[in-house]
């Protein structure tokens, strides 16, 4: 985290943007959920989005791997670029996009398969031959700290794992397909404080290799675990800055009001 004293504002210009959002607007039918969002999401850092329920943060997150596409009446306008390449165009292959931009959900959602098959699933879908799968599964489980606990239980049903292990397993399942961006929608809301701390620790490890975007209601989680933070309100991105700036001297009075609990 870039929270060391005296360096507020120092990373903003040095970080390169993995995702660029320009004039992004989104509607569910006639309801406008996102209003002219401009945002650069820094590469290999953790960016958190905070704001009250219904402010559009999850909608924004789901735009990055086009998860909203299947929702009836959903429309989007504007631009999202991943490493400079447009991801909103008609010709974008969604399977490929979702391989590059994976998502971790609020509740762990392992498949009712073995631990091994859960992690191997994505690679099988992408046509991986079975000789390399064991290595990929081991590497992915090691990356989330599960390998030592589960190496002798690879054949067990994943639903028998603890909630934290299930969430780690879901992250392993994503890592197995070698994504570049991890989207996390309230990834710790179903976990106890100890498990939450471990997942946050894991995020710090993962940001060395991945760009992480997390949506959270837990402002303390945003403050301690993210490098950059955006505050959303009624579909607008009110303020985006390094996390220490948002929580020590936010520039916008609406951000100030929300983070101090005066409204929202």
């Amino acid at each position, binding site marked *: 985290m870039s929270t060391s004293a005296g360096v507020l*504002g120092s990373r*903003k*210009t040095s970080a390169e943007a993995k995702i660029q959002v320009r004039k992004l607007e989104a509607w569910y039918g006639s309801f406008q959920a996102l209003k002219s969002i401009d945002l650069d999401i820094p590469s290999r850092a953790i960016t958190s989005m905070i704001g009250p329920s219904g402010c559009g943060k999850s909608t924004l997150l789901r735009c990055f791997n086009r998860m909203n596409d299947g929702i009836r009446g959903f429309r989007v306008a504007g631009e999202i670029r991943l490493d400079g390449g447009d991801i909103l165009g008609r010709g974008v292959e969604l399977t490929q996009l979702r391989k590059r931009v994976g998502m971790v959900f609020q509740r762990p959602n392992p498949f009712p398969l073995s631990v091994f098959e859960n992690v191997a699933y994505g690679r099988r879908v992408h046509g991986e031959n079975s000789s390399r799968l064991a290595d990929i599964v081991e590497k992915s489980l090691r990356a989330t700290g599960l390998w030592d606990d589960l190496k002798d239980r690879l054949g067990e049903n994943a639903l028998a794992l603890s909630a934290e292990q299930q969430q780690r397993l879901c992250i392993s399942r994503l890592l197995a397909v070698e994504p570049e961006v991890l989207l996390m929608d309230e990834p710790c809301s179903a976990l106890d404080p100890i498990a939450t701390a471990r997942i946050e620790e894991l995020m710090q490890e993962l940001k060395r290799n991945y760009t992480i975007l997390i949506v959270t209601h837990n*402002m*303390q989680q945003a*403050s301690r675990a993210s490098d950059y933070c955006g505050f959303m309100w009624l579909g607008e991105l009110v303020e985006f800055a390094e996390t220490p700036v948002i*929580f*020590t*001297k*936010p520039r916008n009075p609406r*951000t*100030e009001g929300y*983070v*101090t*609990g*005066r409204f929202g």
Partner: protein
Amino acid sequence: MRRHFEEQIEECNARLVHMGAVAERMIEKSIQCLLERTAEGHEEVFQHEGEINNLHIEIDERVISALALQHPVATDLRLLVMATKIAGELERVGDQAVNICQNTASLLKHPPAEVLTNIPEMADVVRGMLRESLEAFVRRDVELAQKVLDTDDQADDFKDQIFFQLLGNMMTEPPTIPRALALILVSRNLERVADHATNIAEEVIYAVQGRDVRHHHEETRQSEGP
């Protein structure tokens, strides 16, 4: 919960205002004793020292408790951090008042100086700085805080003038050395009070606007560029 927390901040603030009043009273009394060449008010200053020390501890405890339990951010965080830092400054202002009394007690052993140098004028400036820094804190008045910062050079200049004035006296009239040394120490005490007032003013600016003006920090950062 928010209202409960605001009450905690208000209570902390009220204790700090009280502490400021005690520190101001100590400085007023010690300077009055100095200028009137009397030790009669010293006991009062010494008694206040215990009170101000207790307030320092109490305010720090309140702030630490609020930090641990309420996880304040933004303005709330800056106000609480400011409170503990200002309490530290005020405790040292109290120490300087005690030092002025002790140096005055040394002066009283000697006959009065024919000219008491610029110490009365310096005392006026320093009292004004302390009063205005506390007023700036109470009213969250950045302009007034800035005025205190702008006055600090005057206090420094007085200290230098007084030193050279007394150095000249000591060289031409060696018997005045003990008295001159006590006066030099008093000017130093006053200059320290001005420094504490300046620090309080800087804290007020940070708490209200989030701007760190200490050690020309802002200018340095601006000249370094993004």
